[in-house]
Every structure is written in C-alpha cells, then in structure tokens.
C-alpha cells in the first residue's frame, strides 16, 4: 500500500494536466477490470461486472493543486498564478516542479521592511519562481508560459503515518485501486478517476451522466481537528477510522449512503468516524445533481495540512476505508 501511495502521490499531475497520473492508474488496474473508457474531458472510467442488477460508482479525483507559469521577465524569473486552492503562504520557501526543471519560490522586497510587509500580505503578485537561469530566452525554453507546475515535496514514511504532496486525492485513488484489485463485486462496480476537481468539480460534473449509477460515493480527503488548538467545532481524528460524511459546504450525503456504510462498519467491527465538515466540498456535490439525481455521499480520509506540500494521513484509516468499500461492493444485499 505504501508503495502504491508513494507512486501515486509523487506523480506530477495538476488539474487539467492529468495524463501522467491517468496512465499510471490505468496501468495499476488494467488486469483487474472488465473495461475502461477515457471521456472527452479526460476522466478515466473503469468497470468490473457484478451479478446484481444495481450499479455502484466510486469516484476519486486524480488531479492535484498546482501553479501555472504566466510571465517570464528579462532575468529569467517566472511569475505564477494558482491552479486550484493553493495558498501563497504554502509556497513560501517551497520548491516547484515544472516538467523540465525545478524552481525555488522567492518573495519580492527591496528592504527588510518591504519583505516583512510582503510576507504579511502575501499574494501571487509578490512571489516569483527562480529556476536558476539568468535570461528570458533560456527560461522560456525550459518553462514556456502556460506550463503547469506542482509542489516538489517528498514522500515521507513515518510508520503508521505517511506524508506527501497530493494525498488530496491520490489517497482516494489508491483506495479505489485497492478495492478494484481485492474485490469480486456483487454489484456492478464503476470507478471514476476524475479530472479538474480542484478548480471546481469539473470532471465529475458529467462523468456519471451516462453510467446512471444507483449509488455514488466520492472518496476524498477531509480536514482534521486533532492538532494543537485544533478546531473544536468538529471532530476528525487521524487513525480513528475513515470518516462517513454527513455534510460539508457543498453537499449533504444521502442518508441511504450514510446508513449503508455505517451498518457495514458496525457489523464488521471496522472503526469509523462521522464527519460534519465546516468548510469544503467533494465531487459528491456534482454527482448528486447529475441527470435526474444520484444517491450520493462521501467517504473521507482525515488528512492534516491539506493543500500544503506535506499532507499527512494514517494508513490504518486508509486500510479500513478499503475494507469497508470491499464489503460494500461484495455485499449481497441491495444498495437501495
């Protein structure tokens, strides 16, 4: 599992530039599926036939947040803009990986006072990327304007806990890949690895339209409350099990999804937690409103420091999410 997560998270594929991660995922699952399709937007849709007359859809988005190079000055410094919810504060002192070259993020400031002020009021106008090239021509060869980049941050193995960029949502991809590998589905299983979630749930908006599943579950990361001075208004603790989402700011999970997951977890002694997320959303929001409406919910992995270069998850939660979903897929009772 660790190797799979490492491989997936260390791949560079920001929103709209998912071909690399799509190939890796397809390569991982191709021996375990009955068919696949890549739609017009680039979503990867795979399926495994079951014996029931119902269809279950599991979705994880395969894109990650990133930046786009927009302008290069005469000295070869690169200006960037965000792709998805990437904070300039998380870029401070970090490294960006472009397809041909890596770069260091710097901050403008003529004097110490300027620098301090710019850091206090940091935005994308105040930062630049330095790829160690002294002129515009060479820099434009390496990073032509319009080139996308992602955090350059390592996979860190802390034992039970693992850390990397792009856990959001490669951890969801890893969970679904494992479900595809380990399960003999009773229900017809569709897995969608969707594009452009981070810029506004783009890929998942249409991915389920032709599939018309009876139930859809987004597998994604969620927040945490268990750090010093963590948010007391919610409870999300690493290691206490995958979180069955009740609500976030984009959707309310269908009760049938919540109860189904909860009863499987209870019967099989799988730890789980219940999630009411104060802010954020997942693809469940657009799966739910597809076509005539789809019974949808989200299964989440509590994740610390989401959208930073170092997102931390607990492997126990990941394993338990896989167990829970395998039981759902194989369970010989009706979905609805």
């Amino acid at each position, binding site marked *: 599992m660790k190797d799979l997560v490492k491989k997936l998270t260390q791949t560079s594929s920001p929103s*709209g530039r998912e071909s690399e991660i799509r190939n890796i995922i397809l390569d991982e699952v191709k021996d375990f599926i009955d068919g696949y399709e890549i739609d017009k937007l680039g979503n990867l849709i795979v399926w495994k036939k079951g014996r029931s007359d119902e269809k279950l859809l599991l979705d994880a988005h395969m894109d990650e947040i990133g930046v786009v190079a927009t302008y290069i000055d005469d000295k070869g410094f690169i200006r960037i803009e965000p792709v998805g919810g990437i904070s300039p504060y998380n870029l401070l002192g970090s490294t960006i990986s472009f397809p041909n070259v890596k770069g260091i993020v710097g901050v403008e400031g003529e004097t110490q006072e300027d620098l301090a002020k710019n850091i206090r009021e940091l935005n994308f106008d105040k930062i630049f990327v330095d790829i160690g090239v002294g002129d515009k021509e060479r820099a434009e060869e390496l990073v032509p304007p319009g080139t996308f980049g992602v955090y350059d941050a390592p996979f860190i193995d802390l034992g039970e806990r693992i850390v990397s960029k792009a856990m959001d949502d490669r951890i969801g991809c890893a969970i679904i890949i494992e479900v595809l590998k380990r399960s003999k589905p009773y229900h017809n299983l569709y897995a969608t690895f969707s594009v452009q979630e981070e810029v506004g749930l*783009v890929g998942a908006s249409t991915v389920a339209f032709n599939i018309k599943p009876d139930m859809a579950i987004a597998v994604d990361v969620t927040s945490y409350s268990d750090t010093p001075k963590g948010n007391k208004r919610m409870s999300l603790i690493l290691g206490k099990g995958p979180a069955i989402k009740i609500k976030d700011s984009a959707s309310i999970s269908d009760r049938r999804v919540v109860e189904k997951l909860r009863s499987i977890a209870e019967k099989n002694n799988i730890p789980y937690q219940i999630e009411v997320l104060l802010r954020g959303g997942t693809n469940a929001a657009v799966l739910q409103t597809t076509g005539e409406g789809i019974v949808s919910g989200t299964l989440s992995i509590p994740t610390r420091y989401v959208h930073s270069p170092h997102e931390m998850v607990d492997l126990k939660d990941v394993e338990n999410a896989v167990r829970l979903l395998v039981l759902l897929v194989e369970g010989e009772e009706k979905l609805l």
Partner: protein
Amino acid sequence: MYIKELTEISGVSGYEKKVREFIKNKIKEKVEGIEEDGLGNLIAWKRGKNSKKLMICAHMDEVGFMVSNIEEDGKLSVIPLGGIDLRAVIGKKVLVGENEIPGIIGYKPVHLQRSDLLTPPSLNDIKIDIGATKRSEVEGKIKIGDFVAFAGNSMIHAEWFSGKALDNRGGCSLLIDLIEKNLDLAYTTYFVFSVQEELGLRGARVASERINPDFAFVIETTTSGDNPEFPEDRRSSELGKGPVITPVHSGYVNDERLFNWVLKIAKESNIPHQIKRRTVGGTDARAIAVSSGAPSLVISIPSRYIHSPLCVMNLSDYENTLKLLSILLVKEEER
C-alpha cells in the same frame, strides 16, 4: 467586421434581443440551419467534412444595470447586471428600456464632496437622471425591470477602436465574419451566440447540453491591463500583440491538446499571439465543460477598460484573431 454596429446596440444580460436580431439578419442566409433556444441563445450551424461537432461560442450580452425602482423625485435606482466598477460609470450616458430613453448616471458633484471623494460610490448613491422631477413623469415611459445600457459611442481612429460592450461584441463580430467567409469547415460547426454570460455563464450551459459538441472554442474579448501604471508582469495581456490564448481561468483548465495545437498553428502561420497571464474571471468554457463534458479553449481579443462605458481595442488584434480562427476552423485537430 461589425464591431461598430454591434457596439452601438443595447443588449445587457437578459435583454439580448436587439443583438440577436442584428446577428440573425446578417447570418441567416449564410448558414444551413439557425434556431433560437428557450433561453435566447442563437445557434447556427454549417456542415463540415468531418461529422464531429465543433461549437464556437461568443456571448452577446454586455454588463449594464436594471431599473429596481422609480423614486418619488423621478430618479431611477438600479441594480448592476454583471461586474461593474461604479467609479467608472459616474456621469456617463445611458439608454433605458425598450424605447432607449436617454439618461445620465448622476452622482454628487465634486465641489460638494470632501472625504467621500476617497471612497468608491455605493449603489445607494447612484441614480439615473432622465430629466424627470417626479415619479408620475416617468411612469408610462419606464418600468421597474427595464434595462439600463451604456450608450454606444464607437469610434475608429487609425488602428484603434473604442466603444462600449466590446466584451463581447468583439467575439460576436468575429463569428459573423467567420460565417461570411464561407470557409471549407473541417467539422460540423455550431456558431453559438450565447446569453447571460456576465451573470454566470447561463446561456452556454444549455446551448452546449443541446449540441453536445466534441470540442469547443470560446471567443472572448478579455482584459489587457497594459496601462502605464501596471508593470509588465502584472498585466493580463497587451494590445497589439495578437490573440490571447488562455491556459487556465476561474473554474476550468483549458484543454491541453487544444492549447498546444492552437499555439503550434499560430507559430507555423506567423500569427502574433500571447498567453494570458492572469487567471481570475471565468468564461463560457466552464459552463461547456460541466454541462456537456466537452473540452474547450478560450481565444480572445485583448481590450483595455472592459466592463466600462468605453473599451479600447487595437484592430490588428481583431485581424490576427480572425486570421487564426479562419485557419483553425478548416483544419482537422491533431490529437
């Protein structure tokens, strides 16, 4: 090029009828089919060599206001339709309602302001003055819900054009030109003149769901920001440097293959072009992606002062955008 005529027409979001009628009259004999959908989008099509469907889309609407009340003293209070900087509209001439009754966007005179000069005006302070002194003089002429459009005042001077509503009559004019060129189209091409883009990409959503295109081009007039007060690296695009190709904007990353393909064609054809440097602001491209799942690319004419009563464009950018599109529409996309 119909920029002059198109930017003289009133067509704020939700009130695109006059623009639609103008365009329909220009193109109806030159296309194979034309229809108007329930939301007011104008959709025309021509068959191509390949049966795949290309949608090329420009929105007809412009930003403006709507009359929200007729006050006791005969002044009109308004709500904005689309993103408007109120500082840019004070003292400007507008046309109100179907009958286009002229009015002025009134505000406190500078002589009577002190510290309020430092703060931008609030919508509560902005009233339209049509020269009436009491409500009864207005009633019968203007109704609550009437549109308020900037008055057209277009001008061509050497290679420069100025006028209102360039966003996006510039795009509409390009589409009409493309139809009139009677190109040997590569794909079956749907020319979509969409409504209510400025209020949230509403028209293109249903148009693309109806057409279900294989891919799309969204033709826009976009922000430049090449004012002297902006250093080069803070600009979004620059006038005179050719069509603007967007890699990513609010809510949608433009299709990678289309992006690379169009850049390649522009280079091969020696057409000046530029990459958009800012990502804020969305276009119909998002609506097309989330409603029909079709990939698209935004190609724009750069323009100064868009969303204000006077926008400025360089005619060479119009010509180069037209040249690029004329090549793209006859070529099979390389995948």
